[in-house]
């Protein structure tokens, strides 16, 4: 897999928790909202943190689509699940929330899952003319 493709996967991993963090910060400034105050909800978009958060989530969606164009769904989802770990770390170091022992255990399990999947093939191979060596390793085992 090329460096550019690793960058796309890194984008999926980073943009989602960063966007969530910015949304969370912006929405805390806006205070508690309810469905009875819909205009406030719409105006929240103009809060700079919320706006930036939405931009980052759009970037996440674009890189997620790009990743799905060259890798299997069952590769992309675990490979980018370090985003959950990043979110927990951002919560600890940026928002100063407490990270409990259970959460550290969760982080270890997710990291192990990422380790498993990234050592395997990226794409299930169906045609012989395209693909990379990693994908061909899969086709070799096909009947």
């Amino acid at each position, binding site marked *: 897999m090329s460096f550019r493709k690793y960058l796309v996967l890194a984008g999926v991993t980073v943009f989602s928790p960063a966007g969530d963090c910015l949304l969370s910060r912006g929405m805390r400034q806006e205070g508690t909202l309810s469905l009875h105050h819909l205009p406030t909800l719409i105006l929240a978009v103009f809060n700079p943190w919320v706006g930036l958060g939405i931009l980052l989530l759009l970037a996440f969606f674009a890189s997620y689509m790009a990743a799905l164009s060259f890798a299997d769904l069952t590769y992309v*989802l*675990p490979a980018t699940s370090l985003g959950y770990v990043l979110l927990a770390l951002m919560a600890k170091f940026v928002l100063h929330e407490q990270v409990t022992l259970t959460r550290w255990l969760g982080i270890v399990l*997710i990291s192990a*899952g990422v380790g*498993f999947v990234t050592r395997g093939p990226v794409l299930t191979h169906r045609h012989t003319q395209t693909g990379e060596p990693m994908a061909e390793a899969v086709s070799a085992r096909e009947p």
Partner: protein
Amino acid sequence: MKALYAWGAVAAIVTASVAGDVLLSRAMKQVGDVGRLWRSYGLLAVIGRVLRNPSFFFGLGAMALAFYSLLFGLSWGDVSLVAPAAASLTFVGNAVAAKIFLHERLDHRRWLAAVFVAAGVALLAV
């Protein structure tokens, strides 16, 4: 009774988001490697090709449905139950659905990864 509603919402969220992920994945496999397409035909052609794909829109619709199910679920059950249950079951559901509908080859590494990540996400949200 409220617990039953909450688990019903979890089932709806998982079903809709698995359908969404599978449809979006199928759409992008039909579109092809966007990096290669971008270099050959330009960004606008890539966007046009994605937007002309029906699976993409069905996938987006399913994602929107999952989001609204989450909102309903959060009003019926605790966020500490609904959100992690839905997120971690979605990982396992996606592995099963990708095998059945996308014919992805799931070796033991991918099954282990799906289960480990699902368990990890559940623990993170406790």
